């Protein structure tokens, strides 16, 4: 599903150059649930931004579902993001003046789906994350866990090939974190490829594979015994 070869990325600030990613190689197959770990400054967020086409690599190749991701202009990147990727953020990033339902329906709007169908599909995904009764609530009326579930429903709504989650449990307490991980595991069980960036070991243990990043290189990449979050919920 994802092939990354010899990926390099530097940031330039004035005369100083910061080499963040120093040759990353890794593949993700369809249906995998991978966590990317590392302390801050290890380059894990940069890697995720490149995977999410929010940023572009200096060197190396990135192939997503046999499509080479290169020479992106804003328009193509926007299309690819819309078709291929679903994002889950640490701070949820819901649009605060839109109801839960409208937030979930937004990616579908950018796919050009008609309003009626948008609402139906958004409702379906809200139901999937167990928030159908809250569909007309604003984000400010929802708890943190509920907001993240709305964000997950939104990421799923466009039926993307890969879900990218950046510290999805970073702003949540332990119990809610496990509920969210349970949901993510459930989605993975249905065959969706998911990448989770985290620095929490217990969260990483709930994925099927842990990629450990340090100073811009992968120091460890191993499959693990998945801990089911449901046993803590």
């Amino acid at each position: 599903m994802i092939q990354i070869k010899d990926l390099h990325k530097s940031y330039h600030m004035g005369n100083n150059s910061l080499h963040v990613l120093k040759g990353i190689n890794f593949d993700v197959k369809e249906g995998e649930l991978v966590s990317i770990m590392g302390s801050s400054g290890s380059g894990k967020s940069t890697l995720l931004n490149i995977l999410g086409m929010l940023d572009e690599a200096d060197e190396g190749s990135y192939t997503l579902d046999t499509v080479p991701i290169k020479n992106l202009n804003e328009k193509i990147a926007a299309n690819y993001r819309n078709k291929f990727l679903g994002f889950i953020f640490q701070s949820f990033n819901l649009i605060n003046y839109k109801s839960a339902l409208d937030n979930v329906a937004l990616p579908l709007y950018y796919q050009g789906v008609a309003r009626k169908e948008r609402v139906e599909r958004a409702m379906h995904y809200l139901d999937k994350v167990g928030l159908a009764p809250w569909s007309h609530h604003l984000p400010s009326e929802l708890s943190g866990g509920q907001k993240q579930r709305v964000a997950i429903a939104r990421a799923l709504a466009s039926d993307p090939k890969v879900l990218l989650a950046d510290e999805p449990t970073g702003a949540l307490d332990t119990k809610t974190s496990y509920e969210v991980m349970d949901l993510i595991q459930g989605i993975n069980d249905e065959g969706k490829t998911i990448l989770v960036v985290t620095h929490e070991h217990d969260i990483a243990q709930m994925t099927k594979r842990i990629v450990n990043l340090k100073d811009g290189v992968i120091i460890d990449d191993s499959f693990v015994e998945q801990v089911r979050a449901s046993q803590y919920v």
Partner: protein
Amino acid sequence: MFDIERWQEIFETLSKNKLRTFLTGLSVASGIFILVILLGFSSGIQNGVTSQFEKDATNSISVWTGVTTKEYKGLNPGRRIQLKNQDFNDIVTKYDDNLEYKSAFYTIWGGLVNYKNESGNYRIQGVMPDNQFIENADIHQGRFINHSDVVGNKKVAVIGNKLSVDLFKGDNPIGKDISLYGINFKVVGVFFDPGGERDESKVMMPITTAQKAFNGGNDIRSMMYTVKMSDNFDEAVKLSEQVSLGIENDIKTTHIIAPDDISAIRVNNTLEEARKIYSLVDTIKAVFWFVGIGTIIAGVVGVGNIMLIIVKERTKEIGIRKALGAEPMSIVGMILQESVFVTMFSGLFGLVAGLALLEFVGPLIESDFIKYPQVDFNTALSTVFVLVFAGAIAGFIPAYRAARIKPIDALRDE
């Protein structure tokens, strides 16, 4: 632009950000509102001044005489200059090509007028038929003095509407006799005068009749002419000046008046005055336009400013939308369409409010110098479009910049 989904999205955004929408709308609406009021009053002043002027023909030359103040060719100062029929006829003959209407006057400033038991003191004026056009008098009933009245010294009178109201109390005055110092005159017409009550409280009769009835002989008190208008206003002013100067010199020569004696004869040229007034009106208009355009510029800057704030405030939202697959142009389009919609809507609102105010308050203004304040609808509408267009340009820059923001930067923006 006509995508219904886009409109739904915009209405939703607007209705959920009421304060922002309201403030943007307010600044635009008040700008247009003020402009409309300003333009309305500028046209009101123009109408008022013009109508002040149009109580008489604007292209008239009037001539009247007084007492000499300088000795000249052996004649003492203090001599009263008396115009005669001959003076009037000479001028008519000499300047016939340039004059349109001409009338000599024999005026009695206050004369007792009786009808049955009613009486009053009114100005009595012997005139010529052309005076109807010189005075801009409007015949309400009957007719004005005509040529045969003048030739035949007929004892007929045309009375102002004030007399008709005062003396006849609603009776039809036509065909009735009024008595002036015991002499009966038949009323043949009633006139209105744009000059108002003062100009409507007079009795006009053929000049020949007046001269005979009131012992005038060949004397005339004053004369008025109107100059033929050419299409070019400046040329007309020039011609009018030349003719009035010519008339002045001619009379000074015939009556042996010192060339620099200014009180023996006065020639008043209204076109010259009209030119001054019109240039004043033009200046007022220019000032109002200047202020109005300043208001519009302030409005545009205001819209641009609000757009900047909106974009700043929505940076994160824009980042989210881009992460979800919004193309840059759709972001620009969304912000622009929203701003154009708001400015257009509130601009039209301000326009309608301003027009409504002028419509309802305008007629209540009781001032001689402001009349019928109104705005040319097309002018007002085009200013709305200018504002919308300029607002769109002012909004485009921040919108374009917003669309260029990297989603990752926007998402970090807290």
